[in-house]
């Protein structure tokens, strides 16, 4: 039986090379095929099917970041690097001398567009493994989802996709016992059929037990542990590196198993606790092919792998299939020979399958065998290094027209419309299906306020350990509507929002991760947007000197004429010394002074208000990093001095929406006067100014608060009973009962 085929490429012309790439689903360009042909010409032979498949995986956009590497290096990688302990599968940043936090965001967009339940579930599985690969205990999951509104012919309906994604996340996250805490759901026409599933994970690691994936000495045994290997997921990365067409092969969707993952997490952490693991990596895109390649390459080693020792789900798999399979729940451990048996024993005690499949060797050669036959014999550096592209980019002129809409007849009606908007109202229909209290360490979850009438929170906080009061915060920033109009502003504002949310809970932001979502990099307009976005992100992050410790790029989110805006989902991680100082947005007391930190603006491009009243265009507000930096410092001072009762950031729907949200969980209203701002009332109430918050101050500490905030705080009014009342000097322009706000925001959910 022929297991390993030889593919003739030496002497073949361009057209034939393209055909080979296509028929073997390699996803490689003609230039890339030529490079490969030249390599094998030098080697003096034709490649095997396994070698070509390995190159197809390693050189795919998804695995190699070839279209974005150059730009990421230029704009993001050099920011605040002194804080970073590691940039492995997850980014790691210290929170004190002993402990560090490992975190990452990942996208699982293409699989979720085809099979939403499985796609979303395995997205969660994958991100957990990335954090686990650092030797960290995952402590929180987040998910930021983007769904379409209208059904597109030939694709499942957005409702079907939404149901599948939410269920997939629920069933996986709940079963592995890690709380799903934070995130967001956005509905926009851009995302049909290009659904986006961005998932994040945060973990805690003892700094002495931090692992890397670098195999840098010879003689390390390579052990595969976890699920068995099958045909699921073959060519998943190639799919993620192409635009979505209609009838996709279902075999590209991976199947996850949280019940295998859960003991695997325990086993790996136990082995790491005892110092038995030298290096670790999880098997995701590209399977064994990617992982072995990357581990050896980063450590400057070569190695041999024996595919017949890989535990299989089905019989009769060809060596190339075993090599690139993306079956879930597998990890690769590099272990010193003296610890090999103990690792197998630990795995066995948790009922996990494990097998030694290879060894690291000096040199730079990767050899992969099946029995006596050689499947791969290649130079590692060639294998893992595709030519990075500096793809052409085109920068479109930003149309900046300041738009002055008609003044609304009924301000109160607009406020309620915004609070009931599908992108503002409660997400309980989804979020109450996620277990957010498991592990007993959730200090602030997705809701806060009076039990039974809880309102939203800005970020989540986890207690790092029951033996101390340290806490870790996680929050997000993203706005595809801004990015659609102005990718640079959208990039800057995503970072601004993530920072605002962390500060809102009283934590200091220490690091970022991101999902950069875009259409095809082969389109110069997309590349232009991509670079503008990075410039915007850099402008804020660099000023704050906070690093991007990890991240993910997802290209090719387009289908036919429909593509998504080029925008980032930024995840920020923060720390607090004392969880007892954590704040939630719900008002706490009647008659407290309420202050605005920040200033309303007449830049309303991309705002929820404009979208609601049907106004296109306008100028998108851009974050001013100097203001942000100063206000962050002052707010954290004010919070840590105990002068603040509650705080909420201003984002979608502006000041009025934030005030409304603060009444929901509390049943306490507010009475404010917006005359000091001198702008049109609807601009004051509905603009989304960036770097802005609403703060409820302790009455008896007001003077102290003002001394700290200086010019950054402007008095709005006071909390009151029952209603939200808005006046301009003596003229009352809106009065809404708290009950009406709550009902609108709850949208019928109980």
């Amino acid at each position, binding site marked *: 039986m022929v297991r390993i085929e030889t593919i003739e490429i030496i002497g073949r012309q361009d057209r034939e090379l393209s055909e080979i790439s296509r028929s073997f689903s390699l996803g490689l360009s003609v230039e890339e095929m030529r490079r490969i042909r030249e390599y094998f010409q030098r080697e003096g032979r034709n490649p095997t099917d396994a070698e070509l498949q390995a190159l197809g995986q390693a050189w795919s956009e998804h695995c190699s970041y070839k279209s974005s590497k150059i730009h990421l290096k230029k704009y993001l990688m050099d920011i605040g690097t002194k804080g970073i302990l590691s940039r492995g599968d997850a980014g790691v940043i210290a929170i004190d001398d002993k402990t560090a936090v490992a975190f990452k965001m990942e996208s699982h967009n293409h699989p979720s567009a085809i099979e939403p339940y499985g796609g979303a579930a395995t997205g969660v599985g994958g991100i957990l493994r990335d954090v686990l690969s650092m030797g960290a205990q995952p402590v929180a999951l987040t998910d930021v989802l983007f769904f379409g509104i209208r059904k597109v012919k030939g694709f499942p309906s957005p409702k079907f996709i939404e149901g599948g994604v939410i269920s997939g996340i629920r069933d996986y996250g709940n*079963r592995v016992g890690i709380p799903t805490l934070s995130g967001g759901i956005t509905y926009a026409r851009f995302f049909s059929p290009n659904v986006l599933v961005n998932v994040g994970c945060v973990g805690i690691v003892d700094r002495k037990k931090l692992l890397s994936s670098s195999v840098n000495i010879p003689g390390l045994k390579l052990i595969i542990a976890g699920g068995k290997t099958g045909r699921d997921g073959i060519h998943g990365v190639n799919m993620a590196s192409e635009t979505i067409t209609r009838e996709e092969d279902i075999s590209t969707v991976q199947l996850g198993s949280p019940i295998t993952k*859960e003991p695997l997490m325990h086993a790996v952490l136990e082995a790491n606790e005892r110092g038995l693991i030298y290096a670790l990596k999880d098997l995701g895109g590209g399977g064994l092919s990617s992982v072995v390649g990357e581990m050896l390459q980063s450590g400057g080693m070569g190695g041999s792998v024996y595919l017949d020792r890989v535990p299989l789900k089905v019989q009769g798999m060809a060596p190339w299939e075993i090599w690139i399979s993306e079956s879930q729940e597998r990890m690769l451990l590099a272990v010193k020979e003296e610890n090999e048996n103990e690792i197998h024993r630990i795995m066995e005690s948790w009922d996990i399958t494990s097998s030694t499949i290879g060894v690291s060797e000096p040199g730079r050669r990767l050899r992969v065998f099946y029995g006596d036959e050689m499947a791969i014999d290649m130079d590692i550096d060639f294998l893992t290094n595709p030519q990075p592209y500096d793809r052409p980019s085109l920068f479109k002129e930003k149309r900046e027209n300041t738009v002055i809409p008609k003044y609304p007849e009924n301000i109160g009606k607009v406020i309620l419309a915004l609070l009931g908007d599908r992108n503002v109202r409660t997400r309980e229909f989804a979020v109450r299906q996620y277990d957010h209290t*498991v592990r007993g360490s959730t200090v602030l979850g997705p809701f806060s306020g009076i039990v*039974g009438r809880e309102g939203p929170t800005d970020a989540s906080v986890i207690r790092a350990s*029951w033996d101390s009061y340290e806490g870790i915060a996680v929050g997000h920033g993203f706005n595809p509507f801004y990015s659609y109009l102005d990718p640079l502003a959208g990039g800057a504002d995503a970072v601004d929002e993530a920072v605002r949310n962390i500060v809102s809970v009283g934590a200091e932001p220490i690091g970022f991760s991101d999902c950069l979502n875009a259409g095809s990099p082969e389109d110069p307009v997309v590349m232009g947007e991509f670079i503008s976005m990075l410039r915007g992100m850099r402008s804020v992050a660099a000023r704050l000197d906070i690093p991007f410790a990890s991240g993910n790029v997802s290209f090719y989110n387009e289908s036919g004429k429909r593509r998504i805006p080029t925008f980032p989902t930024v995840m920020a991680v923060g720390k607090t010394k004392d969880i007892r100082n954590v704040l939630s947005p719900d008002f706490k007391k009647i008659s407290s002074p309420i202050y605005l930190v920040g200033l309303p603006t007449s830049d309303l491009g991309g705002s929820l208000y404009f979208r609601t009243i049907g106004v296109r265009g306008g100028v998108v507000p851009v974050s001013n990093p100097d203001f942000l930096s100063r206000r962050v410092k002052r707010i954290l001072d004010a919070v840590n001095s105990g002068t603040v009762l509650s705080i909420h950031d201003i984002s979608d729907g502006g000041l009025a929406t934030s005030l409304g949200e603060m009444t929901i969980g509390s049943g306490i209203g507010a009475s404010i006067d917006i005359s000091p701002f001198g702008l049109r009332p609807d601009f004051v109430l509905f603009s989304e100014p960036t770097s802005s918050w609403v703060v409820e101050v302790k009455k008896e500490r007001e003077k102290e608060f003002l001394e700290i905030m200086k010019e950054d705080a402007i008095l709005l009014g006071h909390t009151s009973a029952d209603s939200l009342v808005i006046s301009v000097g003596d003229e009352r322009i809106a009065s809404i009962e708290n009950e009406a706000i709550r009902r609108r925001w709850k949208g019928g959910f*109980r």
Partner: protein
Amino acid sequence: MSKSVRVGIITMEGTNNELEAYLSFLHSGANPEIVHIKSFENRRRKVSDFDILFFPGGFSGGDYVRAGAIMAARIKGSFIREIYEFEGEGRLVMGSCNGFQVLTEIGLLPNTKGDHEIEAALAPNISNRFEARTVYLKINRKDCAFLSNFKVGEIIKLPVAHAEGRFIPAGKEILSEISKRNLNALSYVDPRGREAGYPWNPNGSIMNIAGICNSRGNVLGLMPHPERVFYPYTESDWTRQTEHEGMGYRFFKSAVDFVREKF
């Protein structure tokens, strides 16, 4: 010198909650240990090694088949006798969420007839959804080892997180026995302490039963999670409350005190 109170927390693949149960007992001054069910099955550990057995929540065996069914079946197939003996000696057993499901499947609760028959089940929630929320509970009896530090009629708040929590007794007789003997140790109530429907009763349990303690008072099963609010800072509304003890604290303190006094 206080005696060591040994707690065995029984897990298998898919169990969650063992961390917070472990920490709750640890912070109550006991000696907890997380033990995989395999260790009991192959006799490496014995039930009698412990003073308290805790069955944590989660998805033991994936909750494939039925919540808690696979763990219960494995226990019934190997060391069930030891558990019945353990219970007979008056030692303590507690199960929350999936753990409560396991205790009903092995007949430890409600056990009105004393012969460990299966007399109740926890069925899928009436809302047909996983419910993660905070509920109010009324304590109905204090002659239960885990509730001795509470007052009868006291109202507390605990988190729930389950898709199969609807308590259904096997028939009218069982239900009236439960009622007569006051075995329904905790009931779902609204903020004013009155029995109410959804969402205060998150799953549709008959008679708003949230937790059952057996006649003898040494076995407690409940759907909510006291181990997740041992300290107040993980309660859903703590930012609005003044300093107080965690809502779950007294469950563990009562149990540890009981063992110290009695054994």
